[in-house]
């Protein structure tokens, strides 16, 4: 029987994910050596490196047994997977933000239940947020540089992820509300969690210990 197959996200939480897996005793050294490959094998374990938003897809379908992914992605996709542990790293906030000079207009529009145009990479999160407040929204789904949308009049405000707030500041965007906060999570396929419970729970325990230490 092969070892666990782990889906690791490229980008912001890649290093945190490797650190957590390493602390759990997984042979992640190979992933640091060569950044171009998509599939790595080491000591029986396998690692898939994919876009963060694809990690839950691999795991839900069982193409990966476990994966590491931000809570923001899980909130958006709501995949049918087991959410087993909080790595305590990769902290960021999902915020509603608008250009400084538009802040009051947007605030007023929201409080009057006018339809607000929102640019975002997280259409489901944005829709749920506005529906939860009983407010109306027109969501414009984008795939990159969401900050651009309000600067050129595509949207009045944005729902986006921010870790340090630097990008928001650079584009003179102001946070109107914090929607949710996110950290990196360990997820598992429902079948793998049971059929390979020993390995998955060992990983879960290690991530938990490491998370307590980091967080």
């Amino acid at each position: 029987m092969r070892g666990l197959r782990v889906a690791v996200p490229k980008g912001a939480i890649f290093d945190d994910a490797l650190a957590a897996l390493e602390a759990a005793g997984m042979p992640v050294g190979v992933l640091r050596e060569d950044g171009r490959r998509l599939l790595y094998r080491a000591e029986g374990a396998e690692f898939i490196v994919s876009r963060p938003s694809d990690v839950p897809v691999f795991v839900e379908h069982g193409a990966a047994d476990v994966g590491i992914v931000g809570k923001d992605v899980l909130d958006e996709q709501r995949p049918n997977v087991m959410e087993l542990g909080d790595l305590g790293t990769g902290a960021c906030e999902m915020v509603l933000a608008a250009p400084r000079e538009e802040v009051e207009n947007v605030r007023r529009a929201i409080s009057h239940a006018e339809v607000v145009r929102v640019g975002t990479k997280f259409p489901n999160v944005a829709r749920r947020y506005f529906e939860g407040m009983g407010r109306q929204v027109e969501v414009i789904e984008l795939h990159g540089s969401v900050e651009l949308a309000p600067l050129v009049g595509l949207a009045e405000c944005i729902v986006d992820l921010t870790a340090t707030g630097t990008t928001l500041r650079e584009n003179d965007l102001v946070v109107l509300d914090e929607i949710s906060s996110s950290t990196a999570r360990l997820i598992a396929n429902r079948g793998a969690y049971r059929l390979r419970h020993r390995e998955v729970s060992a990983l879960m325990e290690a991530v938990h210990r490491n998370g307590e230490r980091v967080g």
Partner: protein
Amino acid sequence: MREKTPRKFSTTPGTRDVLPPESTRLLDAQAKVLDRFRLHGFREVVTPALEYSEVIEEPKLRDSAFKLFDPDNQMLLLRPEVTTPVARLVAQRLRNTPPPYKLSYSLPVYRRAGVGRGQSAEFRQAGVEAVGSGSPGEDAGAIALLVDVLRALGLRPGTDFALVLGQAAFYRGYLKSATPGVAAGVLAALANKDLVRVDEISRALRPEVAASVREIPRLVGPAAEGSVLERAARYAGESGEAAAALENLRLILGHLRAVGCLDGVMLDFGLIGRHDYYTGAVYEVYASGLGFTVANGGRYDNLLRRFGEPLPATGFAISLERLVSVLPEQDPAPLVVLVGASVEATRAAAELRGSGVPVLHLAEDLPPAEAADYARSVEAGWVCYPALGGVKVAPAQGGEPEIVPVDAVAGRVLS
């Protein structure tokens, strides 16, 4: 050159045509499943594909259902599952006969959800419902039947599949007695399979309660070793409901042990199934190499109340397409292609069928090479021509033809 087919002639998203040999495998598996259901005394019912939308109550199922309106402007649903229609059927049609009602079905269901996520909008569910008995023996009976079905189809418990068994009332009972204020929130988080949220909620609780709230849903292990049950027993604490749930689970396991169905059963106290649906035993079947459940079921004592008959009930549904995808490869069923436009050919075909040989009669005079091509395209192992003293038989894969008496063909091709 053929004209490009217009888009509207393709099948709608999430649906597909099923062709041989896949369709044969699917229907063969269905026949075997129904055969086992009958062996256990479950009798088949057929419910309409259309139901009034009020019949289905669960919001998620209603959202995922295809909807349409009848001439009176009533909203109808294409059934997104079969348990609720069977519950309706029992409450409406069977109230004058004595319970329990042991019914089975194998029907297609329709769901919008998951289209584009690689899941189908139409798939077949084969299942049983035992309505009108709260006995743990009924739960065990359903589980044993499910294991029997999987074994009969060539899957080995523990190696090819695992049945994960939980008891929804255990954790609920514990929460209600130890920390009623957060019970609803914790159960909702667990139904979403979000153990991180369960941990977050537990942090506000007294340390010893917090530890139990965190640990109970993480109790997982083989049913054959008693250690998971022992650990669970320590958490039952003051709660009579949790203790009763645990006793119920012990009884179920006792029945399963008696019929040799404990191999491949895994206990999981974190398995509670859909939010607020299952009231007792709950289970899912996972097969190695498949990320989704092959079957799931459990006790749902609250469903029938909606239809005016508060009856306890338990049952399961197998997803037939998923089941077929994990079955071991099988050789195609024997088939002979008999070639010839003459009356002799028709007679030979009938005689062969009379001796039990499945025959596809191709009423054309095809040369042997083309006939063999055709035979391979329909997965037939043999090509025959009518001949003096019997039929001329050749393997479709190539080889010398031989003249064989009609009554000897069965012995040749059915082995």
